[in-house]
């Protein structure tokens, strides 16, 4: 078998920070290659160069033996490279067929009109081969996340891509959708396509890839056949240290006095009769599948969304509805699940982002003059304590950071308020092992300082690893509360699926 793709000494710098520092490796034809590394290790940058989104500062690439330097995604597509992004790039208001044909609509007998029939007919067999049982004229917004991903794959196949990059394809998929994706990956491989598979879920990488490439700090730190490397060794190569401890030791025990008390919280169709409490020094885990109402409940607690009935109180005093401001005044903090849309001001400096919530504390006199110097210093201290990787936090915009570092900015913004109750909705989604460990440590530190933490997650292992108790939600209701001594993956999953609960 030949070499499909070759990277030779690729360099890339942003803002004085080195993103890629001489990356060289080869990918064999018809192989599925796992690309792993912590956030900020350079995976996305490398793939953006491969996909024509970014140009390298140095080094060269070859594809099928010929020099390859795409200056835009279209160049890459013409050479048979397709990039399936983590945040899918589909037009949800258009049909499946229109999305697939977006660059090359067939015209109706040389008129400027689009030949819809031809477009739809030509795709039927393709969709069928992917087990996507919809008419090509179905609008994409009616599809589930997993199905949308299949549309992206169909698009890649339709453009006859022989090198397909998957960036974190399973983050928004259910277990069943993930299985289906793996079947399709197998199918693609048997058709002779080369696949680059980026993921933080090492079990998946182990299961479906032929080779694993590990990146750390812009360098290749591991390159081996998947069969010859075990997961702990992968982690080792990613973080550069032995890490048999994925979770920090909890440093204090929860107290008896409750901070947050939720009583029969209801909003028809979303949550029903939710009761629970978070105590001082406690990390309360909330587990539930997608659509279980966990995110919606968190938004009600914080006052972003409203609810029909029930009560929410902090330290014994009820909280007014629908006012994030009063929630913040009472010491609540909320790390939302989507940092891009609801967490960050992307093109604003990091310190400004960290200072946003605490601004009123840094204001003097009647006109509310902001003491920028003091605020920047404080934000800098927070940034340091979170080991934020940035070259100039006063000038560098949040969008120039990697995913894990962006998440740290969001967390830092709330740590600066010294929260009494921190709600975190999927805080470790899409971030790497090292950053995850740091997020858990922050939770532990806060809990040791007598704050309460509501930790929402769909990864049951991390809840077991860090939480004191776990509330399981399903269909908008609390199914069961697990004490630490009863933690068990199977039992938690069963509760989330409402099996064997009685």
């Amino acid at each position, binding site marked *: 078998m030949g070499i499909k793709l070759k990277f030779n000494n690729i360099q890339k710098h942003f803002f004085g920070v080195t993103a890629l520092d001489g990356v060289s490796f080869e990918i064999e034809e018809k192989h599925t290659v796992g690309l792993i590394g912590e956030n900020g290790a350079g995976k996305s940058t490398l793939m953006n160069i491969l996909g024509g989104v970014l140009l390298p500062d140095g080094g060269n690439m070859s594809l099928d033996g010929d020099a390859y330097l795409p200056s835009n995604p279209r160049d890459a597509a013409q050479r048979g490279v397709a990039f399936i992004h983590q945040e899918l790039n589909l037009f949800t208001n258009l049909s499946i067929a229109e999305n697939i044909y977006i660059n090359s609509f067939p015209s109706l007998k040389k008129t400027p009109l689009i030949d819809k029939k031809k477009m739809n007919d030509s795709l039927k067999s393709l969709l069928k081969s992917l087990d996507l049982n919809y008419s090509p004229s179905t609008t994409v917004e009616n599809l589930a996340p997993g199905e949308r991903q299949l549309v992206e794959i169909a698009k890649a196949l339709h453009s006859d891509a022989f090198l397909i990059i998957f960036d974190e394809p399973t983050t928004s998929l259910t277990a069943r959708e993930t299985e289906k994706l793996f079947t399709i990956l197998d199918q693609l491989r048997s058709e002779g396509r080369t696949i680059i598979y980026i993921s933080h879920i090492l079990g998946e990488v182990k299961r479906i890839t032929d080779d694993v490439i590990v990146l750390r700090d812009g360098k290749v730190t591991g390159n081996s056949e998947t069969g010859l490397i075990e997961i702990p060794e992968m982690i080792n190569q990613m973080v550069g240290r032995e890490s048999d401890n994925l979770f920090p030791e909890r440093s204090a025990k929860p107290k008896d006095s409750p901070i947050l008390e939720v009583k029969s919280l209801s909003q028809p169709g979303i949550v029903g009769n939710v009761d629970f409490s978070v105590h001082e020094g406690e990390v309360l885990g909330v587990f539930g599948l997608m659509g279980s109402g966990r995110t919606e409940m968190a938004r009600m607690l914080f006052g*972003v969304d409203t609810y029909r009935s029930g009560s929410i109180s902090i330290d014994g005093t009820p909280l007014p509805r629908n006012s994030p401001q009063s929630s913040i005044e009472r010491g609540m903090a909320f790390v939302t699940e989507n940092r891009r849309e609801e967490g960050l001001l992307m*093109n604003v400096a990091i310190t400004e982002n960290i200072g946003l919530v605490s601004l009123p504390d840094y204001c003097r006199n009647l006109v509310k003059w902001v003491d920028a110097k003091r605020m920047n210093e404080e934000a800098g201290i927070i940034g340091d304590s979170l080991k934020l990787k940035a070259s100039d936090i006063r000038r*560098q915009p949040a969008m120039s950071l990697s995913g894990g570092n962006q998440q740290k900015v969001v967390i830092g913004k709330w740590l600066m308020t010294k929260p009494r109750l921190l709600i975190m909705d999927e805080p470790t989604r899409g971030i790497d092992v090292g950053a995850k460990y740091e997020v858990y440590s922050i939770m532990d530190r806060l809990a040791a300082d007598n704050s309460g933490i509501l930790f929402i997650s769909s990864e049951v292992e991390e809840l077991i690893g860090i939480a004191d108790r776990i509330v399981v939600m399903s269909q908008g209701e609390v199914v069961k509360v697990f004490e630490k001594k009863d933690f068990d993956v199977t039992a938690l999953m069963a509760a989330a699926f409402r099996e064997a609960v009685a």
Partner: protein
Amino acid sequence: MSKVDQLNTGRVGNVKILGRKILLSEFFVLYLTVFYLLVLFPFIPRVFSPYNIKNVLSNTWPLLVIAIGQTFVLITAGIDLSQTSVMALSSIFGAVIMTSEADPALLSKSPLWGIMLSDKGGLFAGTSAALPVGLLVMMAIGIMIGLINGFSVAKLRMPPFIVTLVSQMFFAAVAIWLSKSENIRHLPESFSRLGRGNFGPIPIALIIAVIIAVSAHLLMSRTLYGRRLYATGINPRAARISGVPTTKIIIAAYALSGFCAAVGGILYSARLEQGRPTLGNTLLLDIIGANVIGGISLAGGKGKVLWTVFGVVFFIFLSNTLNLLNLKFFVIDIVKGLVILLAAILDVVRSQLALRYSGGKV
């Protein structure tokens, strides 16, 4: 850096880097103004005559005040089309309060005749309270219309364009109805001084405009309100979750816009020495155009008072030089329109450049 940059080393590269620096500079529009004037100077030497400079500057102050008000709204990703009707309505109300005699032949059909207006003038005709009351009422009208706009946009979630387009039509029509389309003259001397008088060697209008510009600059760049204004413009959802009272911030922006329009209305009315129901009705292009030229983004979240100042200065010189060239009014408007279009295109180019050289993902 890209592969293109690597090829262009040496002198060519230096020129490129200098060009990029100028293009990305905060003072870009100022450089552009100077360049433009230097190019035109050989053709119209009159442009630098003391008379012309004085004329240009006297046009600058009121427009600057109004344009700064607009900047606040643009930063929230809104737009305020009603500023011109604020000017007209406050001009009429101010005149009705301050005028010392009204001609029944012209104004007796006004709905205000006999209530606020008679042949002996307005409510406060001839009293020393006329000026302060007149000014207060004019500013209050601006703030009120602004509050109505802001409430509709932020609380009722209506699109800013429609809200302010409607209030522009509505209040402009009210101004014409109340005055029966007549100008109201005989305003007190103390009022006209605001538009034409000097304080020592310095025009009073200049002092007012500078006070407003400096306060607006400090408000935007140094205060809690300013920081929250930008946060609201950039990402209202993230801002709200971070405890920013976005509704209040937006309402305040429209109120400030109304207030500034009213102050601009005061300066114009004082210069014309009359309350005029059509005041400002050709000014909208200049207000928005000056902001766009200055680099204030219509998408919100981006802009500074200094940029607005440069935009206004450029726009006024543009109008002035086109006038001096004896061009027909339609030619002037064609050129103005093209320049605004160019400015909008340039803004896109500049922000993409800025993004590329700040390490952001494109």
